[in-house]
Structures are given as C-alpha cells and as structure tokens.
C-alpha cells in the first residue's frame, strides 16, 4: 500500500523544490498504518483513496465513523481528476462500532462468488475510535489488545484472499492493499517511539508491514506556522527489506518527506 501513499507524495510534490527521480512505483502488497493526528490522517487517507480510484482505476472500500464533509484542499485544487465515474469507484461505509466494522470487512469476500470485482484497496480511517475505550486498565486493556489484533488480522487475511482472487480475475487490479490510520495517544509529544508506551500500537505493527508516521516538524520551514509543518516517514518490516522482489517495497523510493499544510488545507510534499 505504501506504493499508493508514495504516489500521493509524488503527485502533490512541492514544485519549487528539485524533485527527485520517482519514476516507476511498483505495486506493493504491504499494508500500511498511518500514525498521526486524526484530521491529517483522514486527509491523507482520502487523497490515497482518490488517487487509487482516479489514477490507477482501482476499486476502494473506505470505512470511517466520521461523515466526509469536504474534500481535502489538495483535491479541491485539482478537480480535473475527479470525474463522477472515478468517484463511484470509492465505496464509503460508516460502521458504528468495532463489531460492525468486523462484519463489514469480513463480508468483503462475498462479491467474489458473483461477477463484481472485489476492492483493490481497503481503507480504515481512525482505528482508535473503534478500539479505544477511555479510562481502561488491567483486564479491559487486555481486551483492547485482543480487539486490535482481531481487526488487524482480519484486514490482513482479507487482503491476502482478495489479492489471490484479483490475480485470477484481473491481474492489473491486484494486489489488494490495506491502509488504516491510528491516532496515537502520545500525539503531540515529540520524539521517541510511541509503541514503546502504547501496547496497542505494537500489536497493530504485527499485522501492518509498513508504518507511515506523521510527526509535527519542530524545526519547521521558514515562514510556516509550526502546526502546519509535518515530518512524514515510512518504516517497518516492509521497508527494511533491502532486496526488491515482486510485491515488496522498492528500496530506492524516498522514505522521508516533509509535508507543508497550505492555508486552504492542501498538502505539499518535499522528499527529505
């Protein structure tokens, strides 16, 4: 999935900077967990969904608890890509609870029996809303870990099954990727690995091969307000693989980006 995120970074690259050569982005099976603040996470996920639908012609299943009110500024700037035809490829669903989300994801295999093609991208916005019950401790916290493993494992297993089915049906639509977002509790505290203090994140990391971390950039670009300047970096098992085999991440693509949020809400990326 980091292939689609990398495509997003490349599409919304800062024009004034000297763009690095990012030519061919090979499809990757790796599922990605975006860890940052929920509003930024959602914008990035929407950009990824629209990019996958409009540029790659992929079907997308988008799960969120928050009604999508407006499109991120980056998309408003560039409406040419957004034909109704392309937008129809994205199916939004609004599960209310973890149980509903599990049921929705679990039934994604059903169209395979019919003629409809399954999605090539599954997006889950705001996993923390489905998983976190405030003020938990002890045994209940353990239940939270079990729930996190359940949804993450189900997403992994579903993507593996749909990838195999897409390969048989229409190889150009495979693999099926997963991208989910999670707002870490330690958000706002700079530095350090949040999973060290947050067991739920280390459980999610078992099932997501790539993590895309969005940190506030404290050494922000001149003239930018600190809240608009972000450090974006890709890490995880899917990234560490040095050799490129089919379905893995390309080690030559940039792993670190600087993201500047414009006044109209659009995002601008510069490779670091």
């Amino acid at each position: 999935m980091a292939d689609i995120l990398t495509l997003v970074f490349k599409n919304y690259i800062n024009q004034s900077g000297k763009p690095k050569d990012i030519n061919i982005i090979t499809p990757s099976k790796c599922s990605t967990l975006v860890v940052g603040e929920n509003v930024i996470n959602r914008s990035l996920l929407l950009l990824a969904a629209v990019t996958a639908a409009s540029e790659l012609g992929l079907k997308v299943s988008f799960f969120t608890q928050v009604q999508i009110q407006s499109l991120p500024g980056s998309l408003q700037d560039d409406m040419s890509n957004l034909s109704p035809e392309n937008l129809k490829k994205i199916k939004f669903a609004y599960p209310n609870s973890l149980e509903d989300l599990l049921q929705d994801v679990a039934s994604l295999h059903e169209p395979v029996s019919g003629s409809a093609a399954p999605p090539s991208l599954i997006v889950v916005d705001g996993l923390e809303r489905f998983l976190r019950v405030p003020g938990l401790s002890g045994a209940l916290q353990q239940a939270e870990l079990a729930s996190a493993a359940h949804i993450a494992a189900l997403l992994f297993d579903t993507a593996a099954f749909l990838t195999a089915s897409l390969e048989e049906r229409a190889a150009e639509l495979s693999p099926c990727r997963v991208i989910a977002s999670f707002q870490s509790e330690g958000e706002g505290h700079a530095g350090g690995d949040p999973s060290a203090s947050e067991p739920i994140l280390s459980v999610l990391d078992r099932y997501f091969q790539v993590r895309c971390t969005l940190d506030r950039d404290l050494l922000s670009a001149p003239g930018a307000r600190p809240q608009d300047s972000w450090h974006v970096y890709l890490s995880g098992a899917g990234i560490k693989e040095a050799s490129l085999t089919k379905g893995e991440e390309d080690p030559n693509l940039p792993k670190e980006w600087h993201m500047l949020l414009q006044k109209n809400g659009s995002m601008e990326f510069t490779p670091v």
Partner: protein
Amino acid sequence: MTDYEMTSCLSAVADQLLKEVQKTYQEKTQIPDDLLIALRFVFGSCALQALDLIDKRSVTCVSSFSGRRAYQVMGGSGLLYTCYTSCHYCPCPAFTYTVLRRNDSLLCKHILAAYLSQAMGLSQQETVSDQQMSSILSGRAAATDT
C-alpha cells in the same frame, strides 16, 4: 537482534519445521521422535497440547463458495476458536496474554493445532455459505451454531 528480528527469525524456523512435518507425515504417516523434540523445542508446551487437540479431531477447516477459508478449533473447554489461514490470530486468552501482551511466544496451541493438522491432513472439512463465512470471520458466529 531486536524483538521483531528475533520473532521473524523464529517464525522462519517454525515455518521450516512445519514443512518438515508435512513432508515426513506424508511419507511415514507418523511424526518421528526427532521432529517431536524439535516441535517441543520451538513451540514449548503448546506442541503437545496441539497434538492432543489433533488426536481429538478438534480442528475443522471451513470453506465457503467464494473460496475463503478459516480454521475452527474446539478448545479443551468446548469453546470454538476461529483462526485465520494467512496470519497468526486466535481469540483465546492465551494468545492475548502470552503472544500479544507479553510477547513470550509465537502462537497458541489452537493456531499450532490448525497448522499441524493441515500439514498432516487430519482436519475435518466443512462447507458453509458465504454469509456464514462472514459471520465466522467476524467472530459473530461459529459454523456449528447455524
């Protein structure tokens, strides 16, 4: 080695071992002592408990029309646990505690029983509808409930 590298290294050994079990069992229809010792070495006390579950024919491989598959393992307590075919997950308390929370082991006896019974060709087979499969995968229903 980091925890992660340790785990992925161990799971490579575990994968190799399960392949070995499959190959040997196909040839000899039994697991020789050296492989049993290796299973105990890699999986600890889970190994014998898993073999015990297989003896009791506790593992069912459920499949539906879409081609989706999952394992259902009947635990000692009579509860049915659904495990996935492509990654390690089990809803049992031991998985949550020893694997997710403490990171002490790779898997629980149910997952190991599912893999071993698959390798040995000793799982029961059951076909369900696509909708039943969805309920099983989501944890809403067990196959035999419906």
